[in-house]
């Protein structure tokens, strides 16, 4: 007996066929425990074997799931233990490991592999230093490898030395990929309060508290949410808007939960988490900025944007939390400039500034994301921008991050083209009165009082 109404069935079909509803990523998260070796080449070889053996059936399984359930799975990816954690003692160049990750990703047919990472929020180890030094060479000679660094946390404060080291690596990576508008930097993200189970790139990694392997799923759905908000009457009040988003987020999350369970079961690994982030793509209509505009802001970035985003983010979490008991990852709306056509348009028209994005990061997920800035932005300014994002995260006990691309030879008003899912973005102007002396002081900004919670 059909216990679903034809309307409910039609609603799901419309979400998929007309509103860009999909599962954004199924990420197989793998521990690299056991991949340690005496040499970099030895580690690289073991990591290659670990990834290719464990993820051999990942793509095929996800393609099959998408067909059976009729829900597109846009990306299948792999995340690994932060590579600096398994680097051999005394290694100076970890590029061979990045190349092994690239080959492994290619062999199993995935577009990105995350975890070329170092955790430095409290201190910089020798392996962390080696990994950061290897970033420009690694990111400029690979396509699929994603890197991340942890530079601050509520418990540890802000490690300015780590931020400066990262900012140097960003500048060098941009120069090493200057012919492609500094695209290497699009694969490098600096985190505050990094999460251990993030399925989204570029920041996906396999945390120390995770099982040997698990499946983490990232949902999508800005297009569906926008359609629902647009379908409301003009005089629907904010509670009604929140209610509609909440109900939609529930449905989206349930599909994510189902796919996560099935994928884990078929791959023979534990189900990890469902990340409740609304993740946009450059496709028209699949935009978080357009949801904000549908709620009632003239152009994303204008006054009212932070309020609309706060409403959206909260409603998604409330609906999502009912849809799965395995919430995790970043679980907050993404506002990447280049990966969201509406954001890019708002930035190009001047409605959206770097400072507004910083304000927005306080009420959602990764805030300063995929931002193109002038190629001649000083390294101290980049460090100060990252540290401001971190300060919001540290004090408010939340994840924040920065993925900034100083686009070589381009200035404000010009456009950077990264290609594919990374999209394109207008180069945004940067406030020139940066805290150069602040960042050059170095050291660690102590953890805030709110860190003492026990």
């Amino acid at each position: 007996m059909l216990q679903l109404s034809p309307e409910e069935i039609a609603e799901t079909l419309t979400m998929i066929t007309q509103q860009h509803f999909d599962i954004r990523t199924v990420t197989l998260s793998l521990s690299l425990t056991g991949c340690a070796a005496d040499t970099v080449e030895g580690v690289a070889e073991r990591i290659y074997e670990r990834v290719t053996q464990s993820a051999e059936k990942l793509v095929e399984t996800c393609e099959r799931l998408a067909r059976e359930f009729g829900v597109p799975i846009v990306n299948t990816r792999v995340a690994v233990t932060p590579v600096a954690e398994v680097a051999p003692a005394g290694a100076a160049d970890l590029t061979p490991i990045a190349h092994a990750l690239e080959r492994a990703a290619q062999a199993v047919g995935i577009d990105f592999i995350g975890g070329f990472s170092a955790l430095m929020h409290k201190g910089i180890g020798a392996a962390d230093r080696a990994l950061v030094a290897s970033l420009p060479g690694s990111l400029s000679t690979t396509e699929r490898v994603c890197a991340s660094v942890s530079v601050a946390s509520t418990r540890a404060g802000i490690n300015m030395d780590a931020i400066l080291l990262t900012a140097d690596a960003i500048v060098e990576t941009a120069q090493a990929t200057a012919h492609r508008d500094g695209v290497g930097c699009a694969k490098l993200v600096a985190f505050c309060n990094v999460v251990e189970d993030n399925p989204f790139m570029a920041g996906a990694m396999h945390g120390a508290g995770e099982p040997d392997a698990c499946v983490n799923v990232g949902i999508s759905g800005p297009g569906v949410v926008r359609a629902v908000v647009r379908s409301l009457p003009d005089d629907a009040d904010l509670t009604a808007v929140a209610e509609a988003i909440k109900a939609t987020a529930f449905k989206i999350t349930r599909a994510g939960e189902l796919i996560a369970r099935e994928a884990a079961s078929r791959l023979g690994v534990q189900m990890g988490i469902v990340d409740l982030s609304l993740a946009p793509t450059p496709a028209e209509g699949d935009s978080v900025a357009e949801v904000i505009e549908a709620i009632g802001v003239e152009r994303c970035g204008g006054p009212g944007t932070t309020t609309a985003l706060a409403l959206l983010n909260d409603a998604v979490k409330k609906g999502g939390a009912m849809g799965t008991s395995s919430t995790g990852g970043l679980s907050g709306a993404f506002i990447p400039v280049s990966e969201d056509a509406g954001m890019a348009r708002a930035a190009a028209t001047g409605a959206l500034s770097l400072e507004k994005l910083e304000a927005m990061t306080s009420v959602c997920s990764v805030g300063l994301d995929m931002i193109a800035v002038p190629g001649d932005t000083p390294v101290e300014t980049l460090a100060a921008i990252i540290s401001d994002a971190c300060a919001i995260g540290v004090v408010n006990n939340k994840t924040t991050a920065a993925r900034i691309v100083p686009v070589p030879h381009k200035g404000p008003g010009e456009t950077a083209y990264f290609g594919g899912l990374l999209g394109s973005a207008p180069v945004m102007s940067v406030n020139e009165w940066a805290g150069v002396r602040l960042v050059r002081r170095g050291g660690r900004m102590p953890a805030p009082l709110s860190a003492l919670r026990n």
Partner: protein
Amino acid sequence: MKTRAILSVLGEDRVGIVAAVSGTLAQCGVNIEDIRQTILSGVFSMTMLVTVDEEACPFDRVQARLAEVANDLGLQITLQREDVFRFMHRI
């Protein structure tokens, strides 16, 4: 293994849609458990609850056969596992 699935058919109304779809399902050993069908402004819409016997005919094979029917008759036909709808619309 038996898999419950929802079959949706949408397209311009014409003679033989139900026959073609149900005939193909029968050939694949798929059992029809419920059918709802309407025509609104000349648009044919049909929803079926079916059970696919994957030992008789694998799920993707049934989908491929239905895709042929969709192509022949100019229809939109989808066959999806029922769980996805149940998960999204029921707590």
